[in-house]
Protein backbone atom coordinates (compact mmCIF):
# COMPACT_ATOMS: atom_id res chain seq x y z
CA UNK A 1 0.00 0.00 0.00
CA UNK A 2 1.26 3.44 -0.85
CA UNK A 3 1.76 6.23 1.62
CA UNK A 4 -1.21 7.95 0.09
CA UNK A 5 -3.24 4.81 0.52
CA UNK A 6 -2.27 4.65 4.17
CA UNK A 7 -3.18 8.24 4.63
CA UNK A 8 -6.57 7.76 3.00
CA UNK A 9 -7.18 4.71 5.08
CA UNK A 10 -6.28 6.59 8.22
CA UNK A 11 -8.45 9.57 7.31
CA UNK A 12 -11.45 7.38 6.65
CA UNK A 13 -10.94 5.62 9.93
CA UNK A 14 -10.76 8.91 11.75
CA UNK A 15 -13.71 10.25 9.87
CA UNK A 16 -15.84 7.23 10.43
CA UNK A 17 -15.02 7.47 14.08
CA UNK A 18 -15.71 11.16 14.17
CA UNK A 19 -18.97 10.91 12.31
CA UNK A 20 -20.17 8.19 14.55
CA UNK A 21 -19.44 9.65 17.97
CA UNK A 22 -22.85 11.21 17.89
CA UNK A 23 -24.59 8.10 16.51
CA UNK A 24 -28.17 9.19 16.43
CA UNK A 25 -30.96 7.21 17.98
CA UNK A 26 -34.12 6.93 15.83
CA UNK A 27 -35.75 9.41 18.13
CA UNK A 28 -33.49 12.24 16.98
CA UNK A 29 -35.16 14.83 14.79
CA UNK A 30 -33.81 15.86 11.46
CA UNK A 31 -32.62 19.08 13.03
CA UNK A 32 -30.66 17.15 15.62
CA UNK A 33 -29.04 14.94 13.02
CA UNK A 34 -28.04 17.70 10.68
CA UNK A 35 -24.81 18.69 12.44
CA UNK A 36 -23.62 15.11 12.06
CA UNK A 37 -24.39 15.20 8.36
CA UNK A 38 -22.63 18.49 7.90
CA UNK A 39 -19.63 17.37 9.94
CA UNK A 40 -18.79 14.92 7.17
CA UNK A 41 -20.38 16.56 4.14
CA UNK A 42 -19.33 20.13 4.97
CA UNK A 43 -21.23 23.10 6.34
CA UNK A 44 -21.40 25.03 3.09
CA UNK A 45 -22.30 22.34 0.63
CA UNK A 46 -18.65 21.59 0.03
CA UNK A 47 -17.14 18.39 1.39
CA UNK A 48 -13.50 18.48 2.43
CA UNK A 49 -13.39 14.78 3.18
CA UNK A 50 -12.03 12.27 0.70
CA UNK A 51 -14.71 10.35 -1.16
CA UNK A 52 -17.48 11.98 0.83
CA UNK A 53 -19.67 13.85 -1.62
CA UNK A 54 -20.42 17.56 -1.57
CA UNK A 55 -24.15 18.03 -1.20
CA UNK A 56 -24.65 21.68 -2.08
CA UNK A 57 -27.41 22.52 -4.59
CA UNK A 58 -28.16 18.85 -5.02
CA UNK A 59 -31.46 17.98 -6.72
CA UNK A 60 -34.29 17.40 -4.23
CA UNK A 61 -35.65 14.33 -6.02
CA UNK A 62 -32.21 12.80 -6.21
CA UNK A 63 -31.39 13.37 -2.54
CA UNK A 64 -34.76 12.02 -1.48
CA UNK A 65 -34.20 8.86 -3.47
CA UNK A 66 -30.66 8.36 -2.17
CA UNK A 67 -31.78 8.84 1.42
CA UNK A 68 -34.62 6.42 0.83
CA UNK A 69 -32.20 3.88 -0.58
CA UNK A 70 -29.99 4.27 2.47
CA UNK A 71 -32.92 3.94 4.83
CA UNK A 72 -34.21 0.83 3.07
CA UNK A 73 -30.70 -0.54 2.59
CA UNK A 74 -31.13 -0.65 -1.16
CA UNK A 75 -27.75 1.01 -1.04
CA UNK A 76 -25.55 -0.29 1.68
CA UNK A 77 -22.98 2.36 2.52
CA UNK A 78 -21.70 2.79 6.00
CA UNK A 79 -22.37 5.05 7.83
CA UNK A 80 -25.30 6.25 5.70
CA UNK A 81 -27.63 3.38 6.55
CA UNK A 82 -27.40 4.24 10.21
CA UNK A 83 -27.70 7.93 9.42
CA UNK A 84 -30.98 7.37 7.62
CA UNK A 85 -32.34 4.74 9.95
CA UNK A 86 -35.71 5.51 11.43
CA UNK A 87 -36.28 8.66 9.43
CA UNK A 88 -39.86 9.10 8.27
CA UNK A 89 -40.76 9.90 4.67
CA UNK A 90 -41.34 13.50 5.69
CA UNK A 91 -37.95 13.60 7.38
CA UNK A 92 -36.37 12.50 4.12
CA UNK A 93 -38.26 15.21 2.29
CA UNK A 94 -37.21 17.97 4.63
CA UNK A 95 -33.59 16.80 4.67
CA UNK A 96 -33.58 16.78 0.89
CA UNK A 97 -35.09 20.22 0.82
CA UNK A 98 -32.51 21.59 3.23
CA UNK A 99 -29.63 20.03 1.36
CA UNK A 100 -30.78 21.36 -1.98
CA UNK A 101 -30.54 24.86 -0.58
CA UNK A 102 -26.92 24.55 0.48
CA UNK A 103 -24.59 26.52 -1.76
CA UNK A 104 -23.24 24.70 -4.78
CA UNK A 105 -19.72 23.33 -4.43
CA UNK A 106 -16.86 25.25 -6.04
CA UNK A 107 -14.16 23.93 -8.33
CA UNK A 108 -10.67 23.55 -6.90
CA UNK A 109 -8.03 26.21 -7.50
CA UNK A 110 -4.93 25.65 -9.45
CA UNK A 111 -3.80 25.01 -13.02
CA UNK A 112 -5.83 22.65 -15.18
CA UNK A 113 -4.67 20.08 -17.67
CA UNK A 114 -6.39 21.34 -20.80
CA UNK A 115 -5.70 18.19 -22.74
CA UNK A 116 -7.60 16.17 -20.18
CA UNK A 117 -10.43 18.69 -20.20
CA UNK A 118 -10.71 18.41 -23.97
CA UNK A 119 -10.69 14.62 -23.90
CA UNK A 120 -13.40 14.66 -21.29
CA UNK A 121 -15.48 17.21 -23.21
CA UNK A 122 -15.41 14.95 -26.24
CA UNK A 123 -16.52 12.04 -24.08
CA UNK A 124 -19.37 14.06 -22.62
CA UNK A 125 -20.57 14.99 -26.08
CA UNK A 126 -20.24 11.52 -27.45
CA UNK A 127 -22.03 9.90 -24.55
CA UNK A 128 -24.57 12.64 -24.10
CA UNK A 129 -23.96 13.15 -20.38
CA UNK A 130 -25.27 16.66 -20.72
CA UNK A 131 -28.62 15.50 -21.96
CA UNK A 132 -29.61 14.18 -18.54
CA UNK A 133 -27.20 16.13 -16.36
CA UNK A 134 -27.86 19.30 -18.43
CA UNK A 135 -25.29 21.55 -20.07
CA UNK A 136 -24.15 23.00 -16.75
CA UNK A 137 -24.21 19.59 -15.02
CA UNK A 138 -26.69 20.97 -12.52
CA UNK A 139 -28.88 17.92 -13.03
CA UNK A 140 -32.65 17.70 -12.93
CA UNK A 141 -35.10 15.65 -10.85
CA UNK A 142 -33.62 12.21 -10.45
CA UNK A 143 -30.40 13.19 -12.18
CA UNK A 144 -27.88 14.62 -9.73
CA UNK A 145 -26.03 17.90 -9.72
CA UNK A 146 -22.49 16.81 -10.44
CA UNK A 147 -20.82 20.10 -11.37
CA UNK A 148 -17.75 20.59 -9.19
CA UNK A 149 -18.41 17.45 -7.20
CA UNK A 150 -15.33 16.02 -5.52
CA UNK A 151 -13.18 14.33 -8.11
CA UNK A 152 -12.48 11.29 -5.91
CA UNK A 153 -16.18 10.85 -5.23
CA UNK A 154 -17.02 11.06 -8.92
CA UNK A 155 -14.46 8.37 -9.67
CA UNK A 156 -15.86 6.19 -6.93
CA UNK A 157 -19.42 6.66 -8.13
CA UNK A 158 -18.66 6.00 -11.79
CA UNK A 159 -16.60 2.95 -10.96
CA UNK A 160 -19.40 1.75 -8.75
CA UNK A 161 -21.92 2.04 -11.56
CA UNK A 162 -19.56 0.30 -13.88
CA UNK A 163 -18.89 -2.77 -11.77
CA UNK A 164 -22.44 -2.78 -10.51
CA UNK A 165 -21.38 -2.40 -6.89
CA UNK A 166 -23.32 0.83 -6.66
CA UNK A 167 -27.01 0.47 -7.19
CA UNK A 168 -28.76 3.13 -9.20
CA UNK A 169 -32.39 3.97 -8.60
CA UNK A 170 -32.93 2.94 -12.19
CA UNK A 171 -30.81 1.52 -14.95
CA UNK A 172 -29.75 4.80 -16.53
CA UNK A 173 -26.18 5.12 -15.23
CA UNK A 174 -25.40 1.43 -15.58
CA UNK A 175 -26.57 1.68 -19.15
CA UNK A 176 -24.48 4.68 -20.16
CA UNK A 177 -21.33 3.71 -18.28
CA UNK A 178 -20.99 0.36 -20.03
CA UNK A 179 -18.73 1.46 -22.88
CA UNK A 180 -16.65 3.81 -20.72
CA UNK A 181 -13.16 2.64 -19.74
CA UNK A 182 -11.56 3.35 -16.41
CA UNK A 183 -9.13 5.79 -17.99
CA UNK A 184 -12.10 7.67 -19.38
CA UNK A 185 -13.75 7.67 -15.97
CA UNK A 186 -10.69 9.40 -14.59
CA UNK A 187 -10.80 12.05 -17.31
CA UNK A 188 -14.52 12.61 -16.87
CA UNK A 189 -14.18 13.00 -13.11
CA UNK A 190 -11.27 15.40 -13.59
CA UNK A 191 -13.32 17.57 -15.93
CA UNK A 192 -16.63 17.57 -14.07
CA UNK A 193 -14.92 18.37 -10.79
CA UNK A 194 -13.58 21.50 -12.40
CA UNK A 195 -16.41 22.84 -14.58
CA UNK A 196 -16.88 26.56 -14.31
Amino acid sequence: MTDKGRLVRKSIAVLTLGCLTALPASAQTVKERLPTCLACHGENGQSKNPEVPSLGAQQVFYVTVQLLMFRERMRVVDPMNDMAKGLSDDDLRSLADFISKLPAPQPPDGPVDNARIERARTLVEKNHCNICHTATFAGQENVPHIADQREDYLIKALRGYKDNSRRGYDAAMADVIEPITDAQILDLAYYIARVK
Partner: protein
Amino acid sequence: MSIARVRMGLVVAVALGLIYGVAPAAAQLPNTPGATPPPPTPNMPTSEAATKLKGIAAPPFAAAPDKLPLAQLKLPKGFKIEVYANGIPDARSLRIGDKGTLFVGNRVQDKVYAVVDRNGKREVKVIASGLDRPNGLAFKDGTLYIAEGTKISKLEKIEDNLDNPPKPVVIYSDFPNHQAHGWKFMALGPDNKLYVNVGAPCNICIPPDANSQIRRLNLDGTGAEPYIRGNRNSVGFDWNPTTKELYFTDNGRDWMSEELPNDELNRVTKMGQNFGYPYCHQGNILDPQYGWGRSCSDFVPPVALLGPHAAALGMRFYTGSMFPAKYHDAIFIARHGSWNKTNKIGGDIYVVYLNKDGTVKSQESFMTGFIRDNNYIGRPVDVQPMKDGSLLVSDDYEGAVYRITYGNGKVASQ
Protein backbone atom coordinates in the same frame (compact mmCIF):
# COMPACT_ATOMS: atom_id res chain seq x y z
CA MET B 1 -11.36 -6.23 23.66
CA SER B 2 -14.27 -4.04 24.61
CA ILE B 3 -17.45 -4.19 22.58
CA ALA B 4 -17.06 -0.58 21.55
CA ARG B 5 -13.63 -1.22 20.10
CA VAL B 6 -14.80 -4.33 18.29
CA ARG B 7 -17.67 -2.35 16.92
CA MET B 8 -15.40 0.47 15.82
CA GLY B 9 -13.11 -2.00 14.21
CA LEU B 10 -15.99 -3.53 12.30
CA VAL B 11 -17.20 -0.18 11.11
CA VAL B 12 -13.74 0.82 9.97
CA ALA B 13 -13.28 -2.50 8.30
CA VAL B 14 -16.50 -2.14 6.37
CA ALA B 15 -15.65 1.40 5.42
CA LEU B 16 -12.25 0.33 4.20
CA GLY B 17 -13.73 -2.64 2.46
CA LEU B 18 -15.88 -0.29 0.47
CA ILE B 19 -12.88 1.73 -0.61
CA TYR B 20 -10.98 -1.33 -1.72
CA GLY B 21 -13.93 -2.76 -3.56
CA VAL B 22 -15.06 -5.68 -1.50
CA ALA B 23 -18.68 -6.11 -2.34
CA PRO B 24 -20.87 -4.89 0.51
CA ALA B 25 -23.15 -7.19 2.47
CA ALA B 26 -26.33 -6.76 0.41
CA ALA B 27 -24.22 -7.66 -2.59
CA GLN B 28 -24.90 -7.22 -6.24
CA LEU B 29 -23.01 -9.40 -8.65
CA PRO B 30 -20.47 -7.68 -10.84
CA ASN B 31 -21.38 -7.43 -14.49
CA THR B 32 -21.18 -10.75 -16.24
CA PRO B 33 -17.51 -11.08 -17.15
CA GLY B 34 -16.77 -11.77 -20.78
CA ALA B 35 -19.98 -10.28 -22.03
CA THR B 36 -19.13 -7.54 -24.47
CA PRO B 37 -20.71 -4.30 -23.32
CA PRO B 38 -23.17 -2.88 -25.81
CA PRO B 39 -22.29 0.40 -27.45
CA PRO B 40 -24.14 3.56 -26.48
CA THR B 41 -27.14 4.24 -28.67
CA PRO B 42 -25.52 5.27 -31.92
CA ASN B 43 -26.46 8.53 -33.61
CA MET B 44 -28.26 9.98 -30.63
CA PRO B 45 -29.98 13.18 -31.72
CA THR B 46 -28.73 16.40 -30.24
CA SER B 47 -31.53 18.79 -31.06
CA GLU B 48 -32.96 20.73 -28.18
CA ALA B 49 -36.24 18.91 -28.25
CA ALA B 50 -34.44 15.60 -28.07
CA THR B 51 -32.38 16.66 -25.09
CA LYS B 52 -35.58 17.23 -23.16
CA LEU B 53 -36.50 13.56 -23.41
CA LYS B 54 -35.24 11.17 -20.78
CA GLY B 55 -36.57 8.32 -18.73
CA ILE B 56 -39.06 9.29 -16.07
CA ALA B 57 -38.20 8.23 -12.52
CA ALA B 58 -40.86 6.75 -10.29
CA PRO B 59 -41.53 8.92 -7.25
CA PRO B 60 -39.89 7.31 -4.23
CA PHE B 61 -42.92 7.61 -1.95
CA ALA B 62 -46.52 6.58 -2.43
CA ALA B 63 -48.99 9.40 -2.82
CA ALA B 64 -51.33 10.19 0.03
CA PRO B 65 -54.77 8.66 -0.60
CA ASP B 66 -56.46 11.99 -1.06
CA LYS B 67 -53.98 12.84 -3.81
CA LEU B 68 -54.76 9.85 -5.99
CA PRO B 69 -55.99 10.88 -9.44
CA LEU B 70 -59.26 8.94 -9.47
CA ALA B 71 -61.34 11.90 -10.51
CA GLN B 72 -59.31 12.35 -13.72
CA LEU B 73 -59.60 8.76 -14.88
CA LYS B 74 -62.19 8.19 -17.58
CA LEU B 75 -63.95 4.89 -18.16
CA PRO B 76 -66.70 3.74 -20.50
CA LYS B 77 -70.28 4.12 -19.30
CA GLY B 78 -71.20 1.84 -16.45
CA PHE B 79 -67.68 1.36 -15.13
CA LYS B 80 -66.40 2.73 -11.83
CA ILE B 81 -62.97 2.98 -10.29
CA GLU B 82 -61.92 3.04 -6.64
CA VAL B 83 -58.71 2.76 -4.69
CA TYR B 84 -58.08 -0.85 -3.71
CA ALA B 85 -54.86 -0.25 -1.81
CA ASN B 86 -52.45 2.63 -1.45
CA GLY B 87 -49.21 3.32 0.31
CA ILE B 88 -47.33 0.86 -1.91
CA PRO B 89 -44.40 2.83 -3.37
CA ASP B 90 -43.42 1.58 -6.81
CA ALA B 91 -46.45 -0.72 -7.05
CA ARG B 92 -45.78 -2.96 -10.04
CA SER B 93 -46.80 -6.52 -10.97
CA LEU B 94 -49.93 -8.02 -9.46
CA ARG B 95 -50.78 -11.59 -8.52
CA ILE B 96 -53.60 -13.02 -6.43
CA GLY B 97 -53.12 -16.01 -4.18
CA ASP B 98 -55.60 -18.86 -3.82
CA LYS B 99 -56.94 -17.32 -0.64
CA GLY B 100 -57.42 -13.92 -2.23
CA THR B 101 -54.27 -12.20 -1.04
CA LEU B 102 -53.03 -9.62 -3.54
CA PHE B 103 -49.29 -9.60 -4.02
CA VAL B 104 -47.57 -6.53 -5.43
CA GLY B 105 -43.97 -6.34 -6.67
CA ASN B 106 -41.44 -3.50 -7.02
CA ARG B 107 -39.09 -2.53 -9.78
CA VAL B 108 -36.81 0.29 -8.55
CA GLN B 109 -37.47 -0.48 -4.90
CA ASP B 110 -36.81 -3.68 -3.03
CA LYS B 111 -40.06 -5.00 -1.63
CA VAL B 112 -42.91 -7.38 -2.22
CA TYR B 113 -46.19 -6.43 -0.59
CA ALA B 114 -49.27 -8.40 0.37
CA VAL B 115 -52.69 -6.78 0.52
CA VAL B 116 -55.20 -8.73 2.53
CA ASP B 117 -58.58 -8.09 4.10
CA ARG B 118 -58.57 -9.05 7.73
CA ASN B 119 -60.92 -8.22 10.54
CA GLY B 120 -62.88 -5.93 8.29
CA LYS B 121 -59.81 -3.95 7.33
CA ARG B 122 -57.59 -3.94 4.31
CA GLU B 123 -53.96 -4.33 5.32
CA VAL B 124 -50.85 -3.63 3.29
CA LYS B 125 -47.88 -5.63 4.53
CA VAL B 126 -44.30 -6.02 3.43
CA ILE B 127 -43.62 -9.71 3.05
CA ALA B 128 -40.13 -9.49 1.57
CA SER B 129 -37.55 -6.73 1.38
CA GLY B 130 -33.95 -6.19 0.41
CA LEU B 131 -34.65 -7.76 -2.97
CA ASP B 132 -33.14 -6.70 -6.26
CA ARG B 133 -35.93 -5.44 -8.54
CA PRO B 134 -38.59 -7.99 -7.52
CA ASN B 135 -40.89 -7.22 -10.43
CA GLY B 136 -41.99 -10.73 -11.40
CA LEU B 137 -44.65 -12.59 -9.42
CA ALA B 138 -46.36 -15.94 -9.88
CA PHE B 139 -48.44 -18.07 -7.56
CA LYS B 140 -49.10 -21.79 -7.39
CA ASP B 141 -50.31 -24.13 -4.66
CA GLY B 142 -49.76 -21.74 -1.82
CA THR B 143 -46.33 -20.64 -2.99
CA LEU B 144 -45.46 -17.17 -4.23
CA TYR B 145 -42.62 -17.07 -6.73
CA ILE B 146 -40.62 -13.87 -7.06
CA ALA B 147 -38.46 -13.02 -10.06
CA GLU B 148 -35.74 -10.51 -9.29
CA GLY B 149 -33.04 -9.12 -11.55
CA THR B 150 -30.92 -12.25 -11.49
CA LYS B 151 -32.87 -14.93 -9.67
CA ILE B 152 -36.18 -16.52 -8.85
CA SER B 153 -37.10 -17.42 -5.31
CA LYS B 154 -40.18 -18.69 -3.54
CA LEU B 155 -42.15 -18.06 -0.39
CA GLU B 156 -44.01 -21.22 0.57
CA LYS B 157 -47.34 -21.25 2.39
CA ILE B 158 -47.15 -17.48 2.26
CA GLU B 159 -50.84 -16.72 2.64
CA ASP B 160 -50.86 -18.49 5.99
CA ASN B 161 -47.77 -16.65 7.14
CA LEU B 162 -48.24 -13.07 6.12
CA ASP B 163 -47.29 -11.79 9.55
CA ASN B 164 -44.18 -13.85 9.72
CA PRO B 165 -43.24 -14.57 6.14
CA PRO B 166 -40.47 -17.04 5.39
CA LYS B 167 -37.23 -15.85 3.87
CA PRO B 168 -37.24 -16.26 0.08
CA VAL B 169 -35.63 -19.50 -1.03
CA VAL B 170 -33.74 -19.24 -4.31
CA ILE B 171 -34.79 -21.80 -6.90
CA TYR B 172 -33.03 -20.41 -9.96
CA SER B 173 -30.27 -17.88 -10.54
CA ASP B 174 -28.93 -18.38 -14.03
CA PHE B 175 -29.95 -15.00 -15.39
CA PRO B 176 -27.47 -12.54 -16.88
CA ASN B 177 -26.89 -9.53 -14.69
CA HIS B 178 -27.70 -6.24 -16.36
CA GLN B 179 -29.44 -3.06 -15.41
CA ALA B 180 -31.07 -2.06 -18.67
CA HIS B 181 -34.28 -4.12 -18.99
CA GLY B 182 -33.01 -6.33 -16.20
CA TRP B 183 -36.23 -6.42 -14.18
CA LYS B 184 -38.46 -9.36 -14.97
CA PHE B 185 -42.10 -10.19 -15.55
CA MET B 186 -43.12 -13.70 -14.64
CA ALA B 187 -46.25 -15.78 -15.14
CA LEU B 188 -47.31 -19.37 -14.61
CA GLY B 189 -48.22 -21.11 -17.85
CA PRO B 190 -50.97 -23.64 -18.49
CA ASP B 191 -48.14 -26.19 -18.50
CA ASN B 192 -47.30 -25.31 -14.89
CA LYS B 193 -44.00 -23.82 -15.90
CA LEU B 194 -42.75 -20.41 -14.89
CA TYR B 195 -42.30 -18.07 -17.84
CA VAL B 196 -39.92 -15.15 -17.39
CA ASN B 197 -38.72 -12.45 -19.77
CA VAL B 198 -35.01 -11.70 -20.10
CA GLY B 199 -34.80 -8.30 -21.74
CA ALA B 200 -32.19 -6.95 -24.09
CA PRO B 201 -29.37 -5.35 -22.03
CA CYS B 202 -29.50 -2.10 -23.99
CA ASN B 203 -31.73 0.13 -26.05
CA ILE B 204 -30.51 -1.27 -29.34
CA CYS B 205 -27.72 -3.79 -29.74
CA ILE B 206 -27.20 -7.37 -30.76
CA PRO B 207 -28.16 -9.11 -27.54
CA PRO B 208 -26.11 -11.91 -26.01
CA ASP B 209 -27.59 -15.37 -26.40
CA ALA B 210 -28.97 -15.36 -22.88
CA ASN B 211 -30.98 -12.18 -23.44
CA SER B 212 -33.89 -11.05 -25.56
CA GLN B 213 -36.11 -14.02 -24.84
CA ILE B 214 -38.94 -15.37 -22.80
CA ARG B 215 -37.56 -18.27 -20.86
CA ARG B 216 -39.50 -21.00 -19.12
CA LEU B 217 -38.56 -23.38 -16.33
CA ASN B 218 -40.11 -25.87 -13.97
CA LEU B 219 -41.46 -24.83 -10.61
CA ASP B 220 -38.45 -26.41 -8.96
CA GLY B 221 -36.07 -24.32 -11.02
CA THR B 222 -34.96 -27.08 -13.37
CA GLY B 223 -35.32 -27.42 -17.11
CA ALA B 224 -34.85 -23.78 -18.09
CA GLU B 225 -35.08 -23.16 -21.83
CA PRO B 226 -35.77 -20.21 -24.11
CA TYR B 227 -39.38 -20.30 -25.28
CA ILE B 228 -39.27 -17.47 -27.81
CA ARG B 229 -36.61 -15.01 -28.91
CA GLY B 230 -36.31 -11.65 -30.56
CA ASN B 231 -38.19 -9.56 -28.03
CA ARG B 232 -36.68 -6.40 -26.64
CA ASN B 233 -38.39 -6.13 -23.27
CA SER B 234 -41.65 -7.86 -22.46
CA VAL B 235 -43.17 -6.81 -19.17
CA GLY B 236 -46.48 -8.54 -19.54
CA PHE B 237 -47.84 -11.75 -20.96
CA ASP B 238 -50.76 -14.14 -20.58
CA TRP B 239 -52.31 -17.15 -22.26
CA ASN B 240 -55.37 -17.18 -24.45
CA PRO B 241 -57.85 -19.18 -22.33
CA THR B 242 -59.26 -20.93 -25.39
CA THR B 243 -56.20 -21.70 -27.49
CA LYS B 244 -53.63 -21.66 -24.68
CA GLU B 245 -51.34 -19.61 -26.90
CA LEU B 246 -49.06 -17.10 -25.21
CA TYR B 247 -49.56 -13.43 -26.06
CA PHE B 248 -46.97 -10.90 -24.92
CA THR B 249 -46.36 -7.17 -25.09
CA ASP B 250 -42.99 -5.86 -26.21
CA ASN B 251 -41.52 -2.40 -25.81
CA GLY B 252 -39.99 -0.98 -28.97
CA ARG B 253 -36.61 0.72 -29.23
CA ASP B 254 -35.96 4.35 -28.46
CA TRP B 255 -34.26 7.17 -30.32
CA MET B 256 -35.46 6.20 -33.75
CA SER B 257 -38.33 8.61 -34.30
CA GLU B 258 -41.04 10.40 -32.36
CA GLU B 259 -43.56 8.17 -34.06
CA LEU B 260 -41.73 4.90 -34.58
CA PRO B 261 -41.55 2.08 -33.86
CA ASN B 262 -44.79 0.98 -32.24
CA ASP B 263 -44.85 -1.16 -29.15
CA GLU B 264 -46.12 -4.59 -30.04
CA LEU B 265 -48.65 -7.20 -29.04
CA ASN B 266 -47.33 -10.56 -30.17
CA ARG B 267 -48.80 -14.02 -30.38
CA VAL B 268 -46.78 -17.21 -30.04
CA THR B 269 -48.03 -20.02 -32.21
CA LYS B 270 -45.07 -22.27 -31.60
CA MET B 271 -42.01 -22.50 -29.46
CA GLY B 272 -38.83 -21.07 -30.85
CA GLN B 273 -40.34 -18.23 -32.87
CA ASN B 274 -38.27 -15.07 -33.32
CA PHE B 275 -40.01 -11.75 -33.12
CA GLY B 276 -37.41 -9.58 -34.79
CA TYR B 277 -35.36 -7.58 -32.29
CA PRO B 278 -32.91 -6.03 -33.00
CA TYR B 279 -33.22 -6.38 -36.74
CA CYS B 280 -36.87 -5.69 -37.45
CA HIS B 281 -39.29 -3.56 -35.48
CA GLN B 282 -43.07 -3.72 -35.45
CA GLY B 283 -42.98 -6.32 -38.16
CA ASN B 284 -42.02 -4.01 -41.00
CA ILE B 285 -39.21 -1.64 -40.16
CA LEU B 286 -35.64 -2.83 -40.51
CA ASP B 287 -33.45 -1.25 -37.87
CA PRO B 288 -31.29 1.74 -38.86
CA GLN B 289 -28.26 0.11 -37.23
CA TYR B 290 -28.71 -3.61 -37.60
CA GLY B 291 -31.35 -4.11 -40.25
CA TRP B 292 -29.11 -3.76 -43.29
CA GLY B 293 -29.06 -6.89 -45.38
CA ARG B 294 -31.97 -8.38 -43.45
CA SER B 295 -35.61 -8.90 -44.21
CA CYS B 296 -38.55 -8.51 -41.86
CA SER B 297 -40.09 -11.56 -43.45
CA ASP B 298 -37.57 -13.65 -41.50
CA PHE B 299 -39.39 -12.78 -38.29
CA VAL B 300 -42.84 -13.04 -36.78
CA PRO B 301 -44.73 -9.75 -37.01
CA PRO B 302 -46.89 -8.45 -34.18
CA VAL B 303 -50.64 -9.03 -34.18
CA ALA B 304 -51.32 -5.49 -33.01
CA LEU B 305 -49.41 -2.21 -32.85
CA LEU B 306 -49.79 -0.56 -29.47
CA GLY B 307 -48.57 2.97 -30.14
CA PRO B 308 -45.05 4.39 -30.46
CA HIS B 309 -43.17 4.42 -27.12
CA ALA B 310 -46.44 3.85 -25.27
CA ALA B 311 -44.72 1.37 -22.89
CA ALA B 312 -47.24 -1.44 -23.12
CA LEU B 313 -46.56 -3.52 -20.02
CA GLY B 314 -48.85 -5.82 -18.02
CA MET B 315 -51.65 -7.62 -19.82
CA ARG B 316 -54.30 -10.21 -18.98
CA PHE B 317 -57.06 -11.96 -20.82
CA TYR B 318 -60.34 -11.03 -19.16
CA THR B 319 -62.28 -14.17 -18.27
CA GLY B 320 -64.63 -12.75 -15.66
CA SER B 321 -68.37 -12.24 -16.00
CA MET B 322 -68.79 -8.88 -14.32
CA PHE B 323 -67.89 -6.86 -17.40
CA PRO B 324 -70.16 -6.81 -20.48
CA ALA B 325 -69.90 -9.71 -22.88
CA LYS B 326 -67.78 -7.85 -25.41
CA TYR B 327 -64.87 -7.90 -22.98
CA HIS B 328 -64.95 -11.66 -22.58
CA ASP B 329 -61.58 -13.05 -23.63
CA ALA B 330 -60.43 -9.58 -24.60
CA ILE B 331 -56.94 -8.51 -23.55
CA PHE B 332 -56.52 -5.61 -21.13
CA ILE B 333 -53.15 -3.94 -21.43
CA ALA B 334 -51.56 -1.36 -19.16
CA ARG B 335 -49.76 1.31 -21.20
CA HIS B 336 -47.33 2.86 -18.75
CA GLY B 337 -46.87 5.86 -21.03
CA SER B 338 -44.05 7.21 -23.16
CA TRP B 339 -40.86 9.08 -22.33
CA ASN B 340 -39.17 9.06 -25.73
CA LYS B 341 -41.82 11.24 -27.30
CA THR B 342 -42.40 14.98 -27.00
CA ASN B 343 -46.17 14.61 -26.89
CA LYS B 344 -46.73 11.75 -24.48
CA ILE B 345 -49.00 8.86 -25.36
CA GLY B 346 -50.20 5.89 -23.35
CA GLY B 347 -50.84 6.39 -19.68
CA ASP B 348 -54.01 4.37 -20.05
CA ILE B 349 -55.54 0.93 -20.02
CA TYR B 350 -55.99 -0.39 -23.50
CA VAL B 351 -58.16 -3.28 -24.70
CA VAL B 352 -57.58 -5.56 -27.68
CA TYR B 353 -60.44 -7.67 -28.97
CA LEU B 354 -59.71 -10.98 -30.65
CA ASN B 355 -61.54 -13.07 -33.17
CA LYS B 356 -62.31 -16.66 -32.28
CA ASP B 357 -59.24 -17.80 -34.21
CA GLY B 358 -56.99 -15.67 -32.07
CA THR B 359 -56.35 -12.92 -34.61
CA VAL B 360 -56.95 -9.33 -33.60
CA LYS B 361 -60.33 -7.83 -34.38
CA SER B 362 -59.88 -4.31 -33.03
CA GLN B 363 -58.30 -2.27 -30.28
CA GLU B 364 -59.15 0.83 -28.32
CA SER B 365 -58.48 2.76 -25.14
CA PHE B 366 -60.48 1.56 -22.16
CA MET B 367 -59.48 3.82 -19.31
CA THR B 368 -57.66 7.08 -19.94
CA GLY B 369 -56.61 10.07 -17.92
CA PHE B 370 -53.20 9.30 -16.50
CA ILE B 371 -51.67 11.95 -18.78
CA ARG B 372 -52.77 15.51 -18.19
CA ASP B 373 -51.21 18.52 -19.88
CA ASN B 374 -48.50 16.23 -21.17
CA ASN B 375 -47.52 15.19 -17.63
CA TYR B 376 -48.20 12.01 -15.72
CA ILE B 377 -50.59 11.97 -12.80
CA GLY B 378 -50.25 8.22 -12.56
CA ARG B 379 -48.73 5.40 -14.61
CA PRO B 380 -50.42 2.02 -14.90
CA VAL B 381 -48.17 -1.03 -14.85
CA ASP B 382 -50.18 -4.22 -14.53
CA VAL B 383 -53.75 -5.43 -14.68
CA GLN B 384 -55.20 -8.37 -12.79
CA PRO B 385 -58.79 -9.62 -12.84
CA MET B 386 -60.17 -10.61 -9.47
CA LYS B 387 -62.35 -13.65 -8.82
CA ASP B 388 -65.45 -11.49 -8.84
CA GLY B 389 -64.64 -10.18 -12.30
CA SER B 390 -63.46 -6.75 -11.25
CA LEU B 391 -60.11 -5.57 -12.61
CA LEU B 392 -57.17 -4.40 -10.51
CA VAL B 393 -54.70 -1.87 -11.94
CA SER B 394 -51.34 -1.05 -10.35
CA ASP B 395 -49.83 2.45 -10.59
CA ASP B 396 -46.13 2.76 -9.78
CA TYR B 397 -46.18 6.51 -10.09
CA GLU B 398 -48.71 7.01 -7.31
CA GLY B 399 -47.92 3.84 -5.38
CA ALA B 400 -51.44 2.49 -5.45
CA VAL B 401 -53.68 -0.24 -6.79
CA TYR B 402 -57.09 0.61 -8.23
CA ARG B 403 -60.10 -1.59 -8.76
CA ILE B 404 -62.44 -1.23 -11.74
CA THR B 405 -65.97 -2.55 -11.44
CA TYR B 406 -68.98 -2.61 -13.70
CA GLY B 407 -72.63 -2.08 -12.95
CA ASN B 408 -73.63 -3.20 -9.50
CA GLY B 409 -70.24 -4.73 -8.82
CA LYS B 410 -69.92 -4.05 -5.14
CA VAL B 411 -67.20 -1.90 -3.79
CA ALA B 412 -64.68 -4.26 -2.19
CA SER B 413 -65.18 -4.15 1.53
CA GLN B 414 -62.61 -2.21 3.49
